[in-house]
């Protein structure tokens, strides 16, 4: 079955037809060609596909495009670009919070939502708050530092 869906991605209105079984991540990557959002698993565990849906971090591999009718979606490309980095992007670079870069977009999107929703940010809150994102490279140490550092900037 084909469906029609209208949503807003990174500030741009998008209207398209797609098969009903299209996931949000397929729409983002294959139809909109925004390939910063990655797919690292098929069981909704790794978090590489994390984007913001109406301002909250979600796993875009586990949402149908159809469920996003009328929604606001932000991907890593919409968070900040090379000339205008979001403080979280900047902090990941400054703290060496990434190595291969594959989990990074999802990790950053989760971290931004974490800082938005948690009133107080500390190591424990960050570690527990990022349990839905797997990184195989960094051991998370520098990711924790990056989120702590970005949280300070985001709150100022």
């Amino acid at each position: 079955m084909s469906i029609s869906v209208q949503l807003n991605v990174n500030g741009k209105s998008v209207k398209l037809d797609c098969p009903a079984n299209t996931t949000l991540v397929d729409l983002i990557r294959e139809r909109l060609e925004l390939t910063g959002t990655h797919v690292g698993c098929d069981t909704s565990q790794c978090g590489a596909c994390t984007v913001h849906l109406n301002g909250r971090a979600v796993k875009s591999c586990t949402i149908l495009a159809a469920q996003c009718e009328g929604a606001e979606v932000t991907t890593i490309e919409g968070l900040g670009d090379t000339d205008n980095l979001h403080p979280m992007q900047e902090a990941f670079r400054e703290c060496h919070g990434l190595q291969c870069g594959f989990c990074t977009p999802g990790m950053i999107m989760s971290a931004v939502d974490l800082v938005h929703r948690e009133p107080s940010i500390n190591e424990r809150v960050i570690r527990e708050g990022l349990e839905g994102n797997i990184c195989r490279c960094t051991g998370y140490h520098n990711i924790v530092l990056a989120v702590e550092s970005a949280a300070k900037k985001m709150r100022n």
Partner: protein
Amino acid sequence: MVEQSIGKSVLRKEDLRFITGNGRYTGDIDLRGQTHGYFVRSPYAHAVVGEVDTSEARSMPGVVAILTGKQVAEDELGGLPCGWMIHSKDGSEMKQPLHPVMAATKVNYVGEPVALVVADSFDEAKNAAEHVSVDYEELPAVVSTAAAQSGPDIYAEAPGNTCYQWELGEKAATDAAIEGAAHVTRYSLTNNRLIPNALEPRAAIADFNRGTEELTLYTTSQNPHLARLILTAFVQIAPEHKLRIIAPDVGGGFGSKIFVYSEETALAWASMKLGVAIKWTAERSESFLADAHGRDHVSDAELAMDEEGNFLALRVKTTANMGAYLSTFASAVPTYLYGTLLAGQYKTPNIYVEVDSVFTNTAPVDAYRGAGRPEATFLVERIVDLAAKELGVDPAELRRKNMIQPADFPYQTPVALEYDIGDYEVSLNKALEMADYAGFANRKADSEANGKLRGIGLSCYIEACGLAPSALAGALGAGVGLWESGEVRVNPTGSVTVLTGTHSHGQGHETTFAQLVASRFGISVDDVEVVHGDTGKMDFGLGTYGSRSLSVGGSALSVAADKVVEKGRKIAAHLLEGDVDNIDFEDGEFRLKESNRSKTFQEIAFAAYVPHDYPIEELEPGLAEKAFYDPVNFTYPAGTHICEVEIDPETGVTEITKFTAVDDFGTIINPMIVEGQVHGGVAQGIGQAMLEQCVYDESGQLQTGSFMDYCMPRADDLPNFTVGMTTTVCTHNPVGAKGCGEAGAIGSPPAIINAITDAVGVRDISMPATPEKVWRAIQEQRA
């Protein structure tokens, strides 16, 4: 003058693209008109393949073609080779059963590819794959490593499922030393099987151009040139000059992307056959089934000592699981990367090791971060710890007593290696201090007052990196050279393009190598671009594995940069009207001695490319130099890791309260990147020691086939890491570097198990030390 950047934590040049979603991984690439591939995989661990009926699937929507293992056989493609010949102790060659690109007559592990469905879309390919009907006649499966040699034979040419029976060291002397020893510590262990799980699943796009007859293969490879060599020389897919392999951004490897696999090979073959571009991206479930796994040893060891605790001899018998086929470097892992490391940091005079490698009906097993060296280190550092407990001495002191001393270098071990340099005690002392070893008793008392158990454990590891030299490796069975290429191209404006045969997939070479070259030329890191991962761009290279990139690849670049400077001096001598012997190069300037005359690096570059005033009779124009560097020895990173744990005795839940790693990696170019490598390695070591375990059931079905069951370390499983460095500079390469990529995964597991067994007060807990195992050990200990 530009600030010298060696030893500085320069922020990574590659990060801007990754943090903004501008990375370009294989899966991000789409080619016009591309089709999609999906593999039909064996649901059985061991079965005869009968008729493969593709008729129904072929008629399904979008299907372009279905190719089977039988067609692979008809086309007479070569098998996937293993690149290291191991000889058994009787002199015979290892058994290397055909590893077909896709199975034609028999499948030997669950997930082995049997057919490739090519369709217009991924969904169509996957839908059709479900309708490919394969007649299987199931055979009994061999799964257990320990029991493989008594199971039914998988291959007629490998009786007892034995690939080889290898030995190293002096048996008679070792036996005699153990026989007469005052004390012998015995230890039997299993080194648990792991699944690498780089976060980017493997992927490939094969694109054959009928007009140029050129095949371009985009693939997730740590070593694209090696992949090209194997696909051309062994599998005979396409001639080497007509095959271009591009490994763009690669999302982690940890060894698993060194190897040439069935999938990209089948894709390359199919693209040539069909004349279409074909893309395949593994689903994570496929990664679990069909990526090469790691570790999987079963060992018995005996350590003999005299009355004073001096080590006299170590005897080891290991059975190593190869899985169903020999993967690209599988045979070298439990031999030359394992047996040779059993001396550790100690002056054990007699060592003898026997390794039986066995075939089982499980996925192939090959190098995973550390590759052989974690297995050796775990064995040595656990048995040394057990010895200390048995002798009633401090584990740190028993280690110290037996350590190779600085005056002993170069030190020839009884297991083939010659360590060039190190100062193990300095690392040990620094780690003990950073971990506050002296304060442990107080912390333990505090924990006990709170009803908790506390333990501390050490591991003094050594590893051998930068596998070399080529001639020695060749004599030991390696099928390839182990040098590295590098090219330094100075552009006319004085910026520099660096080409390397190594491949960066998280290690930050684009920054480290830029620092190395920029510092040599006195230019800014921003003016150096590092290019890697494309056989169409750079010279043949061996790629990235075994912590070799800086010590071997960086050395090649260092030599090439020296050549650039030498040529620059000649140009400068001409322009400055002096003798070349009187030209110094420093801080980016060529200066004529005893004058105030000089030329900048940029001026010399310009003169080389615009040779209007140039010694053209003596010197070619241009300023680009290459080097092929073949190391004279391995490098030997070493250090001490200390783990402290607190355990909840009611549940067995273990928390690492502090993890200290002190490492000697020789010269460090970028401390930030090096520390990041340590963090990542230790995280994988903690994963092995406490969380990760690949489990097959008796019929060979994978029980841990997703992140729901295979326990990956998450942020809340890990502590912050305390990282320190000591330095002895590598004596034999121009950079002085030893390599840092694997140390974390090598040093940490025994430190963790030593800490946990110390806390519980038991001899052993097998990896992974899950809460249930720890809880059971506590029950046992209290009973």
